[in-house]
């Protein structure tokens, strides 16, 4: 089992969710985060004083999938989340030791 953690643009969330859903991945957890990186923040003036908004709104999508689904999930995310401009985000892959479904207590692959 792997966790795919994708930091994407908020505007692409719906498309990513839909694509994954079509492929059969329905479970995910979504967090509203902010991030910085290569993407330049904006320097704005508020009441005559400059300030920089360098933490830009992103969405973190966490999907725990079976090892066999990792590649396809990544491909789908890459396809749907990409706009080609700086700031499209990252995908990080983590190993997961175990997963448990709280409702049933099922463990491992059955829990996802």
């Amino acid at each position, binding site marked *: 089992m792997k966790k795919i953690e994708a930091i994407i643009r908020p*505007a692409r*969330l*719906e498309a990513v969710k839909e694509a994954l859903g079509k492929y059969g991945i329905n479970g995910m957890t979504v967090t*509203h985060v902010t991030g910085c990186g290569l993407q330049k923040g904006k320097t704005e003036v*508020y009441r005559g004083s400059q300030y920089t908004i360098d933490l830009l*709104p992103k*969405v973190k999508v966490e999907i725990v999938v079976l090892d066999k689904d990792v590649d396809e999930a990544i491909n789908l995310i890459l396809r749907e989340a990409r706009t080609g401009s700086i700031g499209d985000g990252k995908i990080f892959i983590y190993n997961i030791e175990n997963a448990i479904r709280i409702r049933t207590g099922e463990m491992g692959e059955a829990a996802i």
Partner: protein
Amino acid sequence: MQISRCRICLVLLVVSVMLFLPSVAWAEEPAAAGNATALDTVWTLIAAFLVFIMQAGFAMVETGFTQAKNAANIVMKNLIDFCSGSIIYWLVGFAIMFGVDAGGFIGTTGWGTTGTFEHLGLEIPLYAFLIFQTVFCATAATIVSGAMAERTKFVAYLVYSIFISAVIYPVVGHWAWGGGWLSQRGFIDFAGSTVVHSVGGWTALVGAAMVGPRRSKFGPDGSVRAIPGHSITLGALGVFLLWFGWFGFNPGSTLSGTTPDIARIAVTTNLAAAAGAFGGLILPWLRFGKPDVSLTLNGTLGGLVGITAGTAAVSPLGAVIIGFLSACVTALGVEFMDKVLKVDDPVGAVSVHGFSGAFGTIMVGLFAVEGGLFYGGGVSLLITQLIGVVAVFAWTVLTAAILFAIIKVTVGLRVSEEEESEGLDIYEHGIQAYGDFVLRGTQVH
């Protein structure tokens, strides 16, 4: 001697009468008349102040019904259209609306609200009349910002607001209230269902159509997507403020606090709004299974817009019926806009002000106690009302189309895709309206 005594008596009496009467007849009579005029002035001014607070109401409804990322931009537009309207109307619009009539079409004197307006036969000071008319003009102007919200350039909106206050609205106002052809025909639009609200509503329709829908509003297959607003609470506050302001809008349109009509107008206004809320509550409840908060709020406004034309002419029962039906028109109008016209109006401005305004104006032809069809008055008033509604529609759509077309090719009407997606606040104003809150980002549904 007796005679002379008599004479003295007479002289004394005349003098005594002279002493009293001057202060009675020449001073006192004017005193009462002066008091009446003063009361009319006070009434008109307070009504104007109440209408002013409708600007806050519009700002809250429009921002509440749209997304957080555009909140600052919308309140900014609401503020600025009132400000440009106040200045332009004083300089130009008032003269066009109330200057000496030319051909029943337009006023031609009194630029800068100077010179004589004696032809108006005003009792109250000209400036009291001006401020009241100014806030009316600004009401028409501010309706549009909601319909074009979340995608219109600030500078484009600024230009638009100047022209509606200078020309589009004042010409219609002249027709109906400034001695123009509609008023000569007996058109009844007491406080402006058509003159104010439909002018705003039809301009909003043209503007929303020409600027195009928000990118996420319609699916590629034409399916309609809901884009819920960011604060129902502020939206509701706005509706209460608008209702409050309407107590200036309608009863104040007598321009007189000395007529008992103001009481009945207040009652018809209030009942129509209440019935309107029920229209907006019940119809969507029946159709979709749940009482829709935003359509109930819209319905309340639809009821208010609908009664505005006939508020002084119909009975309380008539007001209830008009209010209820106007709200149904509003609710159906929202769907019609989305599903048939495919014009994106985030806050329902076209339905509330355009459709319900026209509908309410026509209803006067049926429900006016004097002259209405249902009260045995025949169809003549009804026909006049229809003519008025159609004429105003035609004028407004035409001029608005020209205006927005010119704006489009000059300063441009619409923001960039990126700006729309990330919010007008940050791009146009370098600010976030809710800097301390974690937002859900910019969702595309």
